[in-house]
């Protein structure tokens, strides 16, 4: 590893983010969804393909890391630097320090089946499951876009509309939500528990 990345407090970290340096959150997506540093991108460390997922998002350059899990930060940093990135700073104390400094954590908005039933007519539901999974039924009116087709479809989505992402259990749709959020769609929500919970609650499906 090259020189030590600077250990930054929330204020200093924020200043570097404002210069346009991307910040990466390395935790599992579910923890990112519950609260993350504003503007940070989710790249969970440890799944196969790190740092390829970072390379998919940006070309090698300066990056910042949110230091939530010190050991993970260290491992990720070594991988990133080997791939040509320069880690210019880490947020000391991670997301908790950010929140403790009085800054708000950004959340990925989750919606329950009951809540979705109440607003289903006012939102666009996107079902990100694979075609073979849809025979069991989808939420009436849902648009069908398999997860891996989302990058092609993102330009057709209206950022002014509220989109609710849906899959079988709520996990793939969370991935989809994080992706759309990063692509600038701020009014995206995720159905917690997915179709399993929607159907479990007795809400209708169309086949």
């Amino acid at each position, binding site marked *: 590893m090259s020189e030590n990345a600077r250990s930054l407090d929330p204020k200093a970290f924020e200043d570097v983010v404002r210069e346009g340096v991307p910040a990466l959150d390395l935790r*599992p997506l579910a923890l990112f969804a519950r609260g993350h540093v504003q503007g940070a991108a989710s790249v969970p460390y*440890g799944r196969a393909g790190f740092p390829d997922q970072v390379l998919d998002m940006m070309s090698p350059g300066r990056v910042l890391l949110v230091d939530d899990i*010190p*050991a993970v930060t260290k491992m990720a940093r070594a991988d990133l630097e080997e791939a040509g990135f320069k880690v210019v700073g880490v947020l000391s104390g991670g997301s908790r320090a950010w929140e403790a400094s009085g800054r708000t954590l950004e959340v990925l908005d989750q919606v329950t089946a009951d809540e979705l039933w109440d607003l289903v007519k006012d939102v666009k539901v996107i079902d990100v499951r694979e075609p073979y999974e849809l025979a069991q039924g989808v939420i009436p009116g849902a648009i069908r876009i398999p997860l891996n087709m989302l990058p092609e479809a993102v330009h057709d989505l209206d950022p002014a509309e509220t989109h609710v992402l849906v899959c079988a259990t709520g*996990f793939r749709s969370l991935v989809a939500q994080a992706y759309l959020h990063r692509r600038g769609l701020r009014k995206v929500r995720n159905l917690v528990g997915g179709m399993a919970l929607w159907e479990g609650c007795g809400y209708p499906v169309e086949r």
Partner: protein
Amino acid sequence: MIFEQLADPGLGCLSYLIGDEGTGEAIVVDPLEKLGVDLYIQKAAERGLAITQVVDTHLHADHVSIGRRLAEAAGAPYRLSKDASVNYSFDPLGEGDTFELGPLVLKVLMTPGHTPDGLSLLATDTSRGREPWFVLTGDSLFIGDVARPDLILPGSDETPETRAAVLYRTLFETLLALPDTVEVYPGHYGASTCGGRYMSGKTVSTIGFERRYNIALKEADERSFTHFVMAGLKPLPDRYEEIKRKNLGVTSDRV
């Protein structure tokens, strides 16, 4: 649910990584020096989990704990029984405290005897059913035998006999009160020095099977139980006093 039993076959030690994919959170129980801090961090990350709790079921006498180091590396709290008297700070656990990992609930049962600070974790996966599914027994009930009561540092006013009496109540009143279907995941197996001579090389059993066939649980009362565990003691673990002192956070000879 994600459940991994991670072993050090050399010492016959077992540790656990238990997590929930939905919330991305995991707990590590009795992490082993032999496996190292990074292995637990990486195993968790590979499964899409962050370690949010690190627990030692008691202060170990046969291996140096990496619980505190793992907790620091993971940015997670380090948890021990409130009855652990150590020279460092930790987040105390008491009877009935719970960890919730999505639908998985782990409830603390105080199970002293081998040590005064022994605890077990009783797990219920509420997405499967309301009954408890398995219990991590730490050093109390093992497969085929039970933990030894005599690993006491000089200067203590405890005796192996007083500890054996406590262990008897832990086994017969706390653990055997669980339903027969509950799986038992112990802290040691095989030739580990922390338990009796009849420990199995198998690393999981059930309360029902141990109730019927565990040799130490055949004893009729506390007196005969104490006699049984004291009669069959293995040699002491290598360097156990030194290891115990390290885990207590003291370096001098005095406790």
